[in-house]
């Protein structure tokens, strides 16, 4: 018999779908009978989904340009030759 505490302890593995089939069946039975645990599971799943759905923002141009300039300087120090008009910007 799975308790709410048991469910919470196993929730991470359940969300990642890495529980063994028998445990999974027990946990699934529990959330059909426990509305609170179902809500916790559902909102945790949505939390992960909403973060996964966010693309990283484009890097501001000045940040990218400073990075390329620093890289160009490092390359020159190491004797790597490269023409980098972008770094002159």
């Amino acid at each position, binding site marked *: 018999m799975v308790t*709410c*505490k048991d469910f*919470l*302890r196993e*929730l*991470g*593995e359940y*969300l*990642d779908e890495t529980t063994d089939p028998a445990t999974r069946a027990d946990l699934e039975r529990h959330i059909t009978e426990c509305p*609170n645990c179902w*809500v*916790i599971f*559902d*909102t*945790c799943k*949505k*939390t*992960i989904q*909403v*973060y*996964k*759905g*966010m693309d*990283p*923002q*484009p*890097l501001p141009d000045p*940040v*990218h340009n*400073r*990075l*390329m300039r*620093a*890289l*160009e300087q*490092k*390359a020159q120090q*190491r004797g*790597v*030759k*490269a*023409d*980098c*008009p*972008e*770094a002159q910007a």
Partner: protein
Amino acid sequence: MHHPPVRPPRPMLALKLDERMAGSSIKDDADPAPVEEFVLVEQARGGDLAAFSELVRRYERRVYRTARHIVQNDEDAEDVLQEAMLKAFEHLDSFQGHSKFYTWLVRIAVNESLMKLRKRKSDRSVSLDESIETDEEPIVREIAVWDDNPEQRYSQTELREILDKAIDSLKPIFRTVFILRDVEELSTEETAEILGLSIAAVKSRLLRARLQLRERLTRTFKRKGDQILGYV
């Protein structure tokens, strides 16, 4: 480990970094597909700056986002991005190719980020020690059903602010694990290796981070009119 033949590095003087934006220096004209990562790494190892710049272009946004979430300010995140990319360029020879290039790169960025945090005299709470809060039971205080697609109520900018604010409210040990596992989608094993933690510690912190974020977002995303219920 066998890879398909790698093209020799092109002469450096023939390369211009702005060409990488169009991809003309690192693609075959007949093949519009992006160049495989290991090819770029091999070319960069041979001193090809344009190839390394393409790797930078592919990953700079993700590295910056990860650093920004850990150090929590733009200036330090920019420093981390730059230091991590320069270190990667300088030490490319030590990249063995056993892991993905991004995993190797993000490990450097995470280490740089954590060093930044530790250097801040005012922040004494930065520790990834195994013993911290790994054995406690996860706690849930607030339960409420969310709207089906609550994120659609907000603009991208508003949503980003809500999500960033929620992550920023977590302790470093929790937000770092969450970022690597659920935002950057690294495996548990990769995350454990990068942070020098056990698999069990990564799993435990990830669950706690997810529950804390869920709780914070519930206050914003809960279905209108529903009560927040206590939970024992």
